[in-house]
């Protein structure tokens, strides 16, 4: 009896060790399977989503033009304390590398970088480089200053020193209308050049207006859809999603046709007699709002619908049976339960709206362009990628902040995207 129970117990211990090993084996298989299923998307996201964003963030503070073309000058400038003019060795290495750059035709990058801070630096740089003597006439400082008096100005060398730093706040500052003065402190740019703050305000304002309109139009629609029998609501849902089936370019183009001075909307309004002169509906803010609301509405309706579908009609009935008027029942029982959908919809529409480019570009006037327009402008027209990246980064940071606020107010775990 005793013996058998003893062997039984040790047998159980061995059994349990085997069991643990087995569990580990099966668990490991399961984890590997899960990882293998997730891996393709994870790799895709890392390569095509995360890497470009990181690249953009880096490019918004990148300052490699001077250090790569004139490494010795850059190193020497970094040693310099920045007071008055730099010592002679700096001038010497600058002159040497300037001549080498002229010979190898590598000065364009440096010239462009310096122009961002001092507009005429390009011509100064090239004029100085052209025909620069092998040896100095006295000191290099005097030689260079004699060729162009800009080199005798401490402000020039302050700019040079900033251009020699490994990273620069130049673009980030510029995208919020700030710059560094000669002494290195941050100041507002002259009011005639200060445009980006206004553009950011305009961008967020336009996105907010579009979001509010989408909510106002989408909430009742989603409410109706959610209360219909599934067969009907599915059909209507397809109609809501129909805009997704056409290209955004075609949809925007169609709005231009509809809203133009001789377009069907103006003609109809005139025919009815509501207006005598055609209204200006396109190439202004109205056109941008109309087209953006149309395109973004499904992003509001989908999360709202999905949340509302999950709210049992019994809640409203219960509320009215407890004595609440239909309005009170809606306000105190229904509306609070749709907040996750409202939050998700607004967040989605706002974030998408903030990044709109094609629609304002096609339907809007000069005063209706959003930040993305300037990102495109700096990327394609002036090839100032630092500036484009900085504007993009500010937009990204603002969006993340907004997301954080939403997470604090509503809670991410309660968000439903549809």
């Amino acid at each position, binding site marked *: 009896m005793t013996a058998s129970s003893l062997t039984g117990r040790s047998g159980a211990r061995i059994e349990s060790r085997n069991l643990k090993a087995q569990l580990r084996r099966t668990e490991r298989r399961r984890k590997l399977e899960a990882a293998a299923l997730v891996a393709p998307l994870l790799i895709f996201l890392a390569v095509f989503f995360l890497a470009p964003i990181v690249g953009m963030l880096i490019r918004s503070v990148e300052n490699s033009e001077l250090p790569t073309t004139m490494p010795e000058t850059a190193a020497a400038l970094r040693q310099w304390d920045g007071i008055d003019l730099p010592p002679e060795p700096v001038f010497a290495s600058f002159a040497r590398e300037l001549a080498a750059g002229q010979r190898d035709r590598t000065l364009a990058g440096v010239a462009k970088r310096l122009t961002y801070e001092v507009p005429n630096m390009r011509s100064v740089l090239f004029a100085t480089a052209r025909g620069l003597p092998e040896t100095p006439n006295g000191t290099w400082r005097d030689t260079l200053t004699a060729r162009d008096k800009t080199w005798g100005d401490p402000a020039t060398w302050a700019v040079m020193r900033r251009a020699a730093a490994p990273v620069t706040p130049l673009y980030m500052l510029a995208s919020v209308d700030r710059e560094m003065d000669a002494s290195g402190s941050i100041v507002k740019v002259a009011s005639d050049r200060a445009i980006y703050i206004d553009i950011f305000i305009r961008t967020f304002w336009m996105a907010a207006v579009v979001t509010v309109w989408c909510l106002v139009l989408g909430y009742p629609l989603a409410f109706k859809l959610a209360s219909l029998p599934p067969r009907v609501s599915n059909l209507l849902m397809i109609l809501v999603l129909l805009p997704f089936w056409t290209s955004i370019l075609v949809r925007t183009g169609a709005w231009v046709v509809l809203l133009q001075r001789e377009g069907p909307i103006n003609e109809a309004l005139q025919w009815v007699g509501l207006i005598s002169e055609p209204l200006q509906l396109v190439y202004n803010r109205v056109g941008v709002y109309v087209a953006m609301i149309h395109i973004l509405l499904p992003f509001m309706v989908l999360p709202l619908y999905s949340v509302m579908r999950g709210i049992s009609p*019994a*809640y409203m009935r*219960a509320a009215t*049976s*407890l*004595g609440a008027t*239909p309005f009170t029942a809606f306000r*105190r029982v229904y509306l609070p339960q749709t907040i996750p959908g409202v939050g998700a919809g607004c967040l989605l529409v706002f974030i998408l709206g903030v990044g709109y480019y094609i629609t304002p570009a096609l339907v809007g006037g000069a005063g209706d362009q959003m930040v993305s327009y300037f990102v495109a402008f700096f990327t394609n027209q002036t090839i100032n990628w630092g500036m484009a990246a900085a504007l993009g980064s500010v937009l990204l940071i603002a969006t993340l902040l907004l997301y954080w606020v939403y997470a604090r107010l509503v809670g991410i775990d309660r968000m439903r995207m549809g």
Partner: protein
Amino acid sequence: MTQTDTSRSAGASAPDSPHVEFKDVRKTYDGETLVVKNLNLQIRRGEFLTLLGPSGSGKTTSLMMLAGFEVPTSGDIRLAGRSIAGLPPHKRDIGMVFQNYALFPHMTVAENLAFPLSVRKMPKAEIEDRVGKALRMVHLEKFDARRPAELSGGQQQRVALARALVFDPQLVLMDEPLGALDKQLREHMQLEIKHIHESLGVTVVYVTHDQTEALTMSDRIAVFNHGVIQQIDVPDRLYQQPCNSFVANFIGENNRLKGVVRDVAGGKCRVDLTNGETVLATAVAVGQAGETTTLSVRPERIVLDAAGVGRDNRLNARVLERIYLGDHLRLRLAVADSDDFMVKVPFADDAQVFQAGHAVSVCWAAEDCRALDPV
């Protein structure tokens, strides 16, 4: 004061008038079939009335019309003597417990209970007082700060009950409130609801398809089928004296035997069974001689063999199955045309003799056998 109090006093002035009255109420959803056909029903003040029936029998629709969520196609519903046809649900002052409780998920238990009071614009102190009382009534004092999702099914059920009662409604409707609970909890809650009803004296209209629940709790039961009340009666009469085959089958266990009426005399009738045997039964819903009928006998009214000496009826039977149930024995017998004729045998020393295949005789009194409409 509140609406509740005025209607209370109005009702008190005419204590004998029915609290709730359905008058020729009809309801159709599609204009073709009537879900409720000519419903006439009077509910006394303080009564616990159960609407019992299979799904689709019109019981829930009737309840929803009373609550105001459905509109009668024709007819009138009167509450405390006045028509409530044009009254929206929120003005009816009727408490309601829903099938899945419908507790507001974004509010705590206390907020749920305070809701009906706050929409009535009660002062804060009174709300707190009443919520506390209601929570004590359902033994959930410590759960006031919880969300409904953090409660068990039974606790949610109690909150729903407390919420429907907290504003002192004159009438409380319950739509299968115990359907989602397990058997043991359901039985416990049945008693609890019954006790609350007794202590508060409110009128309760309760909808269920569970006949045990109906028998346990109700003062009266209205059995619904095909939109018509088949029988409305106190539980024991409903069980012992069903007026038709549907009620006999729906409530409790029932043995059915097909037969043809030979003659009817003095409330009794003789019925020829399909195998040639004859039974003396109470004539309830039979036509003239020669018409078919269905006999109904409750399993516990049947005695076997020697114990049945002197009863009106004795039929031959054969044991098909013997089911041991601890406190009693159930036998499935073949009797006349039926081969699922159930008999309950209380334990006796001779219980061993009833084995499958044995021939026995089944006996019952004519009063315990009711000749009903043929099915």
